[in-house]
């Protein structure tokens, strides 16, 4: 490793340490001060952000459409819960094992299907999810089958969730900016051209898929340890669509965009629920009922309007960076540093 390389490595580690400590301290502070309702929402935002980031890597950066991420979440969630409950393993071990097992399954699913051209991956991963649900529903001794698995230990405190989110973001942003990440983008832009300059497209597609399913597994494990209950139906088609919609809203190929999207999508049902309660309270019972049932229509419309009017999402493949924020603030203040934000793509 060259001097420059080791310097950059040390700087990277420092950044990670600062982020980890910051996330833990901030998470603990919020957990201690905010009411349960808000910490719950914040935890969901963190879990959903991990999921959105994982889906973004495989679809936003590598251009492979996956519709089975709920399947990988289920694998991660159940593995972690079973290891902890049955084998009494410590949380950290079972949590990471959940991710690793999901990654292994990601390899088994991705390896055959990623050699194919076109959108076949979408349908194979969707199929994988249905196979997964059938397995979970029928291995009653291990997973509780259709009755679900209650009594998963509660471990997803806000600090844990925010720490996982920060680490995921840090790792994925390093992956994306590495040589491998450039190859992912090359595969997405034009896989025939990528192949002709010597990039092993299948290798990178499978690699992206494995990394993505690993993080989806972690997200699933977080979810299981948060709700303390797992059921095959939690991980259905709609759950996969949820991560898709978060990324679409935030912007395909933008890591910070995924988090923005996750925040919005997590808040939509909450906003509607509160509006509905408010409407019922002031006497508009019918409007309240409609809002309670109608948020999914709003959600679907949001999906369509986004795709037709702004297919690149809110962030459009750009990242939210400190430098960008600073120049944005400068722009508002009309100061010297006020340049167009963001200055480049």
């Amino acid at each position, binding site marked *: 490793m060259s001097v420059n390389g080791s310097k950059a490595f040390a700087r990277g580690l420092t950044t990670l340490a600062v982020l980890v400590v910051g996330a833990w301290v901030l998470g603990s502070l919020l957990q201690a001060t905010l009411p349960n309702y808000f910490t719950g929402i914040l935890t969901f935002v963190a879990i959903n952000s991990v999921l959105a980031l994982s889906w973004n890597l495989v679809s936003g950066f590598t251009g492979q459409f996956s519709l089975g991420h709920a399947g990988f979440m289920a694998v991660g969630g159940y593995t972690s819960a079973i290891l902890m409950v049955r084998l009494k393993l410590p949380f950290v071990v079972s949590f990471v094992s959940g991710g690793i097992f999901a990654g292994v399954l990601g390899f088994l699913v991705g390896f*055959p*299907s990623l050699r194919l051209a*076109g959108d076949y991956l979408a349908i194979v991963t969707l*199929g994988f999810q249905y196979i997964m649900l059938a397995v979970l529903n*029928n291995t009653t001794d291990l997973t509780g089958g259709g009755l679900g698995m209650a009594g998963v230990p509660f471990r997803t405190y806000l600090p844990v969730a925010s720490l996982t989110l920060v680490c995921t973001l840090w790792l994925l942003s390093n992956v994306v900016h590495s040589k491998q990440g450039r190859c992912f983008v090359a595969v997405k832009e034009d896989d025939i051209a990528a192949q002709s300059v010597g990039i092993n497209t299948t290798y990178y597609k499978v690699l992206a898929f494995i990394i993505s399913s690993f993080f989806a597994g972690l997200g699933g494990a977080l979810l299981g340890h948060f709700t303390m209950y797992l059921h095959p139906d939690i991980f259905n*088609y709609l759950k996969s669509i949820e991560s898709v919609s978060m990324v679409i809203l935030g912007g395909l190929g933008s890591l910070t965009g995924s988090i923005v999207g996750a925040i919005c999508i997590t808040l939509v049902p909450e906003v509607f629920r509160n509006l509905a309660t408010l409407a019922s309270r002031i006497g508009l019972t019918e409007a309240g009922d409609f809002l309670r049932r109608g948020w999914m229509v709003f959600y*679907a419309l949001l999906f369509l309007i986004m795709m037709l009017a702004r*297919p690149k999402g809110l962030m459009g493949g750009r990242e939210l960076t400190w430098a960008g924020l600073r120049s944005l603030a400068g722009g508002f203040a009309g100061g010297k540093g006020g340049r167009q934000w963001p200055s480049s793509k």
Partner: protein
Amino acid sequence: MKEFTQQLLNGLAIGSVYALVAVGYTLVFGVLRFINFAHGSVLTFAAYVSLFGMLALKLPFAVAFGGSLVVSGLFSIMVERQAYRPLRLQGAPNLNLLITSIGVSLLVENAIIVFYSADFFVFPKVLSSSTISLGGVATIPPVDLLLTGVAITLMVLLYVFVNYTKMGVAIQALAYDRDAAALMGININLAIAYTFFIAGTMASAAGVLIGMKFNVNPYLGGLFGVKSFAAAVVGGIGSIPGSYLGGYLIGILETMGAGYVSSNYKDAIAFVLLVLILLFKPSGLLGRGLQEKV
């Protein structure tokens, strides 16, 4: 032997449904090259249209059925006009079309839940529920007979349309090469509208008939749609006979698997078959290899 024949007949009936829906996926994939996830929801939509026709408008079954074929065909065209055509004209990547079609399917399902009901409906009784005995070998419920009959009639009609009419040949040309077809003076938008109409009608027939066989609920199209897509891929997407073959293959294997192995894994059989076929013959049983263009 008796049980085997019985399972085979059941498989043929359910396979007819898969084949009818699969051919819609193949047609749309052929002309636009994307997986139309909204196709399954046309099936749900059609079941509700005929249900509405019979319950609220008190129409006789034949009129409600025929009406739902036309309405769903037009609905399918409308989806193409409003959602896919703008993207197609922008030259958006196929991924965007795919995501849009997911949005359409979400919209249809949830609009039904919000404006109609999330309840399961039992279809009004049209046919007698007593089964017809086939010479002691097997029995068949009348609804299965109707299902298979309608499916085969529609398949034959489609075969004639695609091969012996001017518009059918135009659609084939479009599937072969859209730009070249446009240069030859084919009205692309009209041909695509025809394709969507046919796909919608066939899905509609499937929807009404499985609504009669089981029940009508907002999620009817979900699993049926996905399995039918698997059928289209197994048979070779882009090949019309291939999607019939795939549909019947998956229908028969599924009922056989449920009957002889375990009914718990019934829903997984189609996807296991899909992965196996993709491993050994990626273009499907009757499909031609997709030529990638540089």
